[in-house]
């Protein structure tokens, strides 16, 4: 089966989505820490920071969504399935694609989880 126009998956593509999660997490934390670090005016609303987190979140979700979309498409195109225990290039590829799908889904949910506090918390208390 032709692999052309498809990514050849490897360990780096496997961890792409969780890496995006990690950067999203780090940036959200840094943005909040910079805003609130000299914790002087704790009742001041931090609308700007929350918007910034929202922006980072959208970017992260789009990036992870892209990984997810691509890996699902390629996994299906290569025949899908869940076992992937054969001694062929194709099955190794499918295994990596399917694992990428799972990790991307987890990372997607993870990003949403992490973004939620910015919905409900208004200030630096």
């Amino acid at each position, binding site marked *: 089966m032709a692999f052309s126009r498809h990514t050849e998956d*490897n*360990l780096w593509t*496997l*961890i792409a989505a*969780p*890496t995006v*999660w*990690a950067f999203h*997490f780090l940036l*959200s*934390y840094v943005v*909040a*820490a*910079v805003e*609130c*670090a*000299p*914790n002087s005016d*704790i009742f001041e609303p*931090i609308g700007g*920071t929350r918007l910034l987190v929202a922006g980072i979140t959208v970017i992260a979700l789009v990036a992870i969504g892209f990984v997810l979309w691509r890996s699902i498409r390629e996994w299906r195109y290569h025949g899908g399935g*869940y*076992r*992937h*225990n*054969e*001694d062929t*290039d194709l*099955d*190794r590829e*499918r*295994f*990596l694609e*399917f*694992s990428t799908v*799972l*990790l991307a889904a*987890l*990372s997607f*949910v*993870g990003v949403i*989880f*992490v*973004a*939620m*506090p*910015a919905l*409900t*918390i208004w200030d*630096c*208390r």
Partner: protein
Amino acid sequence: MSATHDGRDAEELRKGQEERLNKVWETPKGWRYWSVVNNTEVGIWYTATSFAFMLFAGVLGLLARVQLAVPENDFLTASFYNQVYTLHGTVMMFLFAVPIFEAVAIVILPQMLGARDLPFPRLSAFGYWCFLIGGVFVSGSIFFGAAPEGGWFMYPPLTTQERFTPGYGPDIWLLGLSFIEVASIAAAVELIVGTLKCRPPGMRLNLMPLYAWYVLVVAGMILFAFPPLIAGDILFELERLFNWPFFDPERGGDPMLWQHLFWIFGHPEVYIVFLPAIALVAMIIPTFAQRPLIGYSWIVLAAVGTGFLSFGLWVHHMYATGLPSISLGFFSAASEAVAIPTGVQVFVFIATLLAGRVVNSVPMLFVSGALAVFVIGGLTGVMVALAPFDWQAHDTYFIVAHLHYVLIGGMLFPVVAGVYYYWPLVGSRRLSDRLGKIAFWLMLIGFNVAFFPMHLSGLMGMPRRVWTYPTGLGLDLPNLISTVGAFIFAAGILIIVFDILRPKGNQPYAERNTWNAGTLEWLSEVPGKSWGVRCVPIIKTRYPLWEQPGFMEDYDKGRFYLADAEELQRETMVTSVLDGEPVQCLRVPGPTFMTMIAAILLGAVFIFATFHWWEATLVAMVLTTISILVWLWRGTSLIPEKAEKDVGLGLSLPLYKSGPQSVGWWAMFITMVGDGTAFLSLVFGYFFFFTIHEDFPPTGAPTPGLLWPLVSLALTAGAWAAAWAALKTNKAGNVAVARVLMAGGTGLALAGGAALVWAPYGAGLDPVSHVYPATVWVLVIWTVAHAAVGALMLAYCLARSFAGRLTPVYDIDIENVALYWHFMAATGLITVAAIGLSPLAA
């Protein structure tokens, strides 16, 4: 007629092969035994040593429980109680929980991958000796009443200021453990390269045993989790030894920085402890369900997913420090998210057990106990991950209960299951079923009796780390019950120890592959052979012993690769990362005392520094460097007697590879990733102070300026370019030019280092006065030390070139040094940017 003749010939050939293999892999006798570096021996020493530390720490736990059995007890003094619980936690975490992973992996990973050994056996041996020396040093301190008292996370200022903690306790903790962290990182490098490059031919990523997946993830986590602690240790020791004020608020420092650095390490650490134990479960369950694990990809998801998410949890240990609640929210959310992959694993295991026909056995008993206990700990974990609940439970016995449920359920029980499961590989006999069962029930019951009541005493308000409590608060009964339970639990452990140690001479050998498992480690003969594997097999399935017909016979008859050792050299096979295609026949080094000597000398550096014997420290440092150079010179990148060798089945492989194809290059790359993480943690410290201070650097304070940092940067860049050009010219055959470049690079590197030191020195930055000059100095010292190492490396290459050990074809040394210099150049750039530019921004 001629067929039997052939048969006899083949038989003879096989005998000869086995003789040669035996001879090459023979374990030295007598006192030379201790020069062994082979993974089977070193792994066993490692395992036994960490178990011994566990027993020691267990006795300390029992002492603590005796003291707490009744109110207002004076069995231990307050100070001694502090030492006891601090050392209990420290030893359990640093000398048992993490090392046992490395130990077990060193024993079984090569077997599981059909490799004769890991790629750097001497590195494992070096790591072991570091671990032993550091561990004995830290543990021994309690016999002199000098053990640390600050709890296993050593929060400053309690532990940094003489008036709170006189004596050497914290220094012993810091230096002893830093030393062991070095060993852990060494093991991580070894295990990553081993899993990626030493799999047998045909073992593609999708066919790799799940244990190997976990090892890969956990070793990767070590690489990013331990360096922040090393960075923290450096700051901490500089404050203790030289009064640099990193954690002293009066001079601009902040104790919170330590908490961040400690827990950026500490939280991933608990998963570093948990995942490898669960990896054992993932090997045991298929065997006793007698079917492949269901949901291979889901386990990969869980391992990799947990590996990442675990780095977003650290602040949940710091909920009570007054951080803004939006920050707490992020960490709380991530802490809840990590329950998803963790739950997935538990469900995968249950599904496999339901789908198979479960064979009753001791390992399975411990596995089921592990799952039950761990799930309870996981549930209280979900509770304390919520900040408002944690504010109530923080620093109470509820936490002590939670952490023991997860650690004992998630680590100790699986490890014991692993001991019962893998013992036949080590001891050639099975452990006793009857004793195992008794031990299991004692441990399960004792554990719950001991630790369940702690939830209640904690909710009643009993703080952790108190040496006694008043009567009449309702705490008397739960504490007494806990103590009784702890002894029942300990009785179970003692039975296991007895089962392992009792003489088994009159008991018959276990049959080969005694549990009828499907993975390669069970190819091992009974009694075991020292050659690791008879030949390097070709893999086509996940469970070759079940799914590849005639596999064991082909293996025994040496019908796969490397069935012989014609040149009487230790060899194993290197393959490609994705599909395990053969790449190289790797010669691995044999026994040596150099590793032990280097570890003893390095240990001396740390121990002398603890007691401030500076001259001795310096001497030991020089000797350590020399010993490592001797080790490298004599034992690495040896030029083989021929370019290629026939490894059997008509395949011929190169004996030498350099650059990204070689295992050494990857080891350097991985080490430098860890090293870079430690550096970035120091930079994090710099920016941490930058954000919390209104003015950083403080107005009017001297700064290193721009001139000297830029001069240094230019010189460092020159050294970097020289290293790179030396590699290229040497490859092209221009040896003379390459030598000039190596010499020039050495000089430029040293000059760059000198210029960088001059910047803060000339400007009069006094590191004791304020945290700003102190952080500048730390970045400078780190960078200069690395420049010096880089200079030494270039000089080493030059010497190798003159000695004829580095040639245009055989150029591992300069390949690796050029790689080092990429990282070094980045380090120089970041340091100069941080210390030179940030004063401009302020």
